[in-house]
């Protein structure tokens, strides 16, 4: 067993040395592979950054209930107790008409505004923080709350949140689609690279078979070659996306600041990086395995 591991380690090392020795031959394949990986990765990072930001936005989605002008203490108390008991509501606060008016005066820098008014035109209001983030549920809740007695309207910009949510969903699906398509491309590219290698080393393979090499022996260097290529391509793709994140972030930040938002493109987490490396190595090895299974069978020495 120890010996078996030693032999595998030997092949792994030899395969890496081979790649490093002929950097130009490998470079083209490597470039293709890493771009194939970098595309879905960048999309994934973009979508998940948007989702993170959207999550922060809707983390405190609020529904504002404006009461009718004629609402009285008892009505307010009734609404207040409904809100307290409601299972979908996290918390709420009450903004009375007087407070609303003074807030308005303060904010607009118009002290004495109320002096000119005989009646306070502002309604009493409840600011409700729901438990759910899901736009559809929010909409349902808003409808339900607007139906409470003496509630004039319940305001919540559900359409906007829904659109954002939909876009994130679509982005996720696109990421999956692109990831799957380019994953297949990765398998095909290594399949082809290994096929070429097998054909180029046909004589060697024939002789090895003649003197008793099993397929596993012949396959081993190709498998390790593919594994390294997958790992290196994964690392290169990580480099490309990191570069994208670093160069794009200042511009995104500046743009987002115009809207008082802190949006940032995030990079891959260490766990995500490991997953990417593992997947790209495995896909490359799958391609190598398919190619060698197919082509080694065709090489029968005579």
């Amino acid at each position: 067993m120890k010996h078996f591991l030693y032999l595998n380690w030997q092949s792994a090392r030899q395969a890496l040395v081979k790649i490093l020795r002929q950097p130009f031959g490998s470079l083209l394949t490597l470039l293709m592979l890493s771009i194939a990986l970098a595309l879905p990765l960048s999309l994934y990072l973009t979508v998940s950054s948007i989702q993170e930001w959207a999550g922060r936005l809707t983390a405190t989605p609020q529904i504002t209930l404006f009461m009718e002008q004629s609402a009285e203490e008892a009505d307010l108390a009734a609404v207040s107790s409904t809100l307290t008991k409601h299972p979908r509501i996290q918390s709420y606060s009450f903004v009375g008409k007087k407070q609303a008016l003074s807030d308005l005066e303060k904010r607009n820098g118009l002290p004495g505004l109320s002096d000119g008014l005989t009646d306070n035109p502002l309604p009493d209001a409840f600011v409700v923080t729901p438990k759910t983030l899901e736009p559809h549920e929010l909409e349902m809740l808003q409808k339900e709350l607007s139906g409470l007695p003496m509630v004039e309207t319940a305001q919540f910009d559900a359409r906007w949140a829904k659109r954002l949510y939909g876009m994130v969903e679509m982005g996720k699906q696109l990421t999956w689609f692109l990831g799957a398509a380019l994953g297949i491309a990765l398998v095909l590219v290594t399949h082809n690279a290994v096929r070429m290698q097998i054909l180029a080393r046909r004589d060697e393979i024939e002789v090895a078979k003649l003197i008793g090499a099993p397929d596993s022996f012949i396959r081993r260097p190709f498998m390790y070659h593919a594994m390294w290529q997958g790992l290196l391509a994964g690392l290169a793709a990580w480099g490309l996306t990191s570069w994208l994140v670093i160069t794009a972030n200042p511009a995104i930040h500046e743009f987002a600041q115009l809207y008082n938002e802190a949006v940032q493109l995030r990079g891959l987490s260490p766990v995500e990086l490991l997953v990417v490396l593992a997947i790209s190595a495995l896909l490359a090895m799958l391609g190598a395995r398919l190619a060698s299974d197919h082509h080694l069978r065709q090489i029968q020495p005579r």
Partner: protein
Amino acid sequence: MQRMIQFDQVTKRYPGGNEALKNLSFTIDTGEMAFLAGHSGAGKSTLLKLVAGIERASSGSVIVSGQNLSKLRSSQIPYVRQHIGMVFQDHKLLFDRSVFDNVMLPLDIIGFDRRDAARRVRAALDKVGLLSKEKSMPIRLSGGEQQRLCIARAVVHRPSLLLADEPSANLDRAYALDIMELFKSFHQVGVTVVISAHDETLMEDYGRRIIRLKEGQFAA
């Protein structure tokens, strides 16, 4: 005596209908040294290829050290070959690697420890008188040297069965005798040896069994 090779009514028909061997039955004992004689096209190479599992019998059974090759799955054939050393008529050397690396290949295949392997490779090269050329490329070797390199590769992993297909072809008599002596020395340490040649004069001096083939059958 145990049998190393047993042919039972073996016929080999190549694609295209060419019958290279016709209904052959014979045995070769373990530890025996036997010769295979016959003119060009008699079927000598075909017979040896059947023993090594390089070709499969069209009918009949080929049993090598107790294993019926006709019944073996092709994925198991390599492990049979690992116990066989074969000197190929056309050498089958790898010209993109050194003499040393050519001889290393069988040991790599059976997964021999690298350091012990280097010692074994040098011992085999020494035996065929090529130790001083271990770093050369095979293309720089003479025809006879290439033949000897092929022999070194065939014996380096100490096979129990050695098959040599015309190992002394194209060599002058002195060289050919050298090579015969070499095979005899393997035979003396217990290896079963089968050597083919179309020139019988060399064989007769050894007083061993000679299997004579003619058009795929035993010659009278």
